């Protein structure tokens, strides 16, 4: 079995395990829906107010949902010992870590992206902003999973690890939030979104090249 097959095998295994645990999959989406519902209750139901704040609400809610969903990335594998076996296998750790991150994104980031588009209808997001919102989510949520994986690897299995994870990860997520919201806001005003998209793409590539190394190394440190 080559490294590529190992990548696919681990990816399929993680997806299979994930879909057998529908609760873990649906909870972040439910949380996302509830956070978005809080805003009309807090801001009032007027269309103009909600429309103006729609990009911020959608993105802050996705950021929070993505953060709390990170917890499941390595937890069960750590508890039953399979994470140790995965790291002991003869394949490069980085490949295996990337498979796990991709599986996690497919089960959290991708559904969040689709869900965000549906929920932005509830917040009266103007039609012109849909495509940019989709674009920022498609570029942004993988960055959240990548950068998040480092922090999960550092905190998995710690007492109060969940809260600590959120505290470590939110400052690192702030640039993504800034560029994404700036792009959607620009689109709503009919301005160019190219600059923000270049930055998000650059950050995605940076995360893609550095995060798997850091995650693999962090997991090894935690495993001793």
């Amino acid at each position, binding site marked *: 079995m080559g490294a590529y097959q190992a990548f696919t095998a681990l990816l399929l295994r993680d997806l299979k395990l994930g879909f057998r645990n529908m609760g873990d999959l649906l909870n972040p989406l439910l949380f996302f829906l509830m956070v978005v519902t809080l805003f009309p209750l807090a801001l009032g139901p007027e269309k103009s107010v909600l429309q103006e704040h729609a990009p911020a609400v959608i993105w802050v809610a996705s950021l929070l949902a993505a953060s709390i969903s990170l917890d499941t990335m390595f937890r069960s594998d750590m508890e039953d010992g399979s994470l140790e076996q995965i790291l002991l296998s003869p394949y490069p750790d980085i490949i295996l870590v990337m498979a796990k991150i991709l599986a996690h994104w497919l089960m959290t980031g991708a559904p969040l992206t689709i869900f965000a588009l549906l929920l932005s209808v509830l917040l009266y997001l103007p039609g012109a902003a849909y495509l940019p919102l989709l674009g920022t989510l498609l570029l942004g949520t993988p960055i959240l999973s990548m*950068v998040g994986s*480092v*922090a999960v690897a*550092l*905190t998995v299995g*710690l*007492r*109060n*690890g969940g809260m*600590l994870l959120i*505290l*470590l990860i*939110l*400052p*690192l997520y*702030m*640039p993504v939030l*800034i*560029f994404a919201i*700036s792009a959607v806001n620009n689109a709503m005003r009919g301005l160019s979104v190219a600059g923000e998209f270049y*930055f998000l793409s650059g*950050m995605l590539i*940076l995360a893609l090249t*550095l995060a798997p190394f*850091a995650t693999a*190394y*962090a997991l090894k*440190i*935690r495993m*001793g």
Partner: protein
Amino acid sequence: MLGPTIDKYAAPKNAYSLAFTLTPWFAWISILLFIGGIYGGLVYAPPDYDQGESFRIIYVHVPAAWMSMFVYVVMAIAGACGLIWKVKLMDAVARSCAPLGASFTLLALVTGSIWGKPMWGTWWVWDARLTSELILLFLYLGYMALQSSIDDRRTAARAGAILALVGVVNIPIIHFSVEWWNTLHQGPTVTKLDTPSIHVTMLIPLLIMSIAYTTFFITMLMVRLRAEILDQERNTTWVRDLVLGGTDK
């Protein structure tokens, strides 16, 4: 020549006695520089034509802001050395840096806020620099929280080093993104700070103050480092001899 010297002082016992010897030197240099810098800043430097006397907080604020970033870089480099060469001393250096850096960041935030009151009319403005300092404070606090929740000292140090390195990669991105955000949302509220040059009579006390801050940081680092080394080596005979013997070396 250099290799054996580094090896010698990487040993905790020798590092401890070196830190013990150097502490008073750096402490005195720092005190003298502080006296000179504060005199220069409060008396020698002329009042600013635009901001009057209130600009003088710059002598506390700007070096603190510089140090807040410098200490983070020192912490990350020490952490990386600990990871790569597995030097326990470097782990102790990184761990000692965090509370110091967090304090400098807090000082920069508080003095920035006090400066903001006469200049902007409010205690807090979501200005790019203040916001990036705030995020930097979050990074320091996250590092310290991670350190304190891992019981094993060695694992804690290595995990912290990874986090510090991730932070160092992110700091320029955060800084730039916050500036981007600020110019889009706020307009230029801080052009006052960007005035092209600062007069040399104002600059010299600022430089003296920043050297004073640096030597103060080194002094405090030595003090914390000694405590860290003693804690880390508490089961060894030399620490027991040191504590029971009551000698100062």
